[in-house]
């Protein structure tokens, strides 16, 4: 039995129906453990004070924001090469989740930046490339909603995703180059992490696991919704034509 079985919408729905409840439970459990542990039972950092608790939100959401795009890229390629509808719809379903993750990373980062760097926002390469990613997400979603034929929408957004990924990588390097030397090492983030590893590390792992599972659950569920929406469209079109 090949994995492509699940490219069939009905099979996919059946599978996701079975997996979803467990996934919801796991994700909320992990999130609860990670966040409660992190928030209530970890000490303050000696330099960052209590703001270090933001890490349990910021890092997982930032990771998921990037991974969501990556997942969309893979799904787009599958659609273009094998034309499995479910993968196109999964890419569509993942985009809003990616936007939310990006938003959380941006907000928590900004809130963290205020006490740490004395400003909400600096044009640091990492932050900047995140903002660009945000733009890509918005464009992607806007394109989906602007094209009304589902197949050509899938085609076009897939191409956008692929070309966009190339340019996203390019921008990442461009931004690094651009802000070189202009911005004084704002990213104390990295060494901090290695310094204070263990106390903060374990709850962070739970939190990351929680975000990953939540992401999977949301994407699975939303893909199911998209499949039903597509089915409804197909049924209605047939009804009109053959009434």
């Amino acid at each position, binding site marked *: 039995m090949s994995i492509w079985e699940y490219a069939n*919408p009905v099979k996919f729905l059946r599978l996701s129906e079975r997996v979803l409840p467990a996934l919801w439970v796991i994700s909320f459990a992990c999130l609860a453990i990670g966040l409660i542990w992190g928030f209530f039972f970890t000490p303050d950092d000696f330099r960052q004070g209590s703001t270090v608790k933001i890490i349990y939100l910021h890092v997982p959401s930032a990771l998921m924001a990037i991974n969501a795009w990556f997942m969309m890229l893979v799904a787009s390629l599958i659609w273009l090469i094998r034309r499995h*509808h479910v993968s196109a719809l999964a890419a569509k379903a993942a985009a809003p989740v990616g936007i939310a993750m990006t938003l959380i990373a941006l907000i928590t980062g900004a809130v963290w930046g205020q006490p740490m760097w004395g400003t909400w926002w600096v044009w640091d390469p990492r932050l900047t490339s995140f903002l660009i990613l945000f733009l890509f997400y918005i464009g992607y979603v806007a394109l989906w909603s602007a094209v009304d034929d589902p197949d050509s929408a899938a085609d076009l957004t897939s191409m956008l995703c692929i070309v966009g990924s190339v340019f996203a990588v390019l921008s990442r390097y461009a931004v690094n180059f651009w802000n070189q030397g202009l911005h004084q090492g704002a990213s104390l983030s990295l060494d901090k992490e290695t310094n204070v590893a263990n106390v903060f590390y374990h709850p962070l792992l739970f939190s990351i696991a929680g975000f990953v599972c939540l992401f999977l659950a949301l994407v699975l569920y939303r893909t199911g919704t998209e499949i039903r929406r597509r089915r409804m469209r*197909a049924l209605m079109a*047939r009804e009109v034509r*053959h009434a």
Partner: protein
Amino acid sequence: MMLRVKDLTVARGGLPVLAGVSFSVDAGQAVMLRGPNGSGKTTLLRTIARLQDPVAGQIECDPDQVAYAAHSDGLKSMLSARENLRFWADVYGGGDVEAALEAFELSRLAERMAAHLSAGQRRRLGLARLLVVKRPIWILDEPTVSLDEASVALFANGVKAHLATGGLALIATHLDLGFAAERFDVSAYRATAEAVGLGASDEAFL
């Protein structure tokens, strides 16, 4: 030189409109596509012109031999009638622009911008394009819309001349075009609920 369609299923908006269409047009022959509004003539013609993919079935004809004329004529309002034709003649390599203008009685209007032509004059210019592209297979979607009787006769002569030189024509129309041609009624091929199982992209969801 011929156009053969076998067991063709064409879809619009993800659902099949016509299923199992088979016919063939030989050199020197014209076929009129008939069928009520919304029966799928436009969809069929676009598929044969390779502007969209068929759901199933074969189309036997060399895409490089096809000239397609849709309802919109592809005319640039800001170019004169002659410049419009010259452009298409150049894209397709050659073709006598003056003769084409003459054939549709547009010589007098050759310098006028397309924006300043009346509905019927525009349409004539769109048809004159067919003469300059010099392709043997004509696929025409309602070519005589807004033409008066004299212009319809011009068009009929154009088609006859084309057939006489070994061309062929497939024409969707609701009107009488004033020359004898075989008719092909698409309404007999309306895709039924069963035909939906044939692979249109909606199929997976039904």
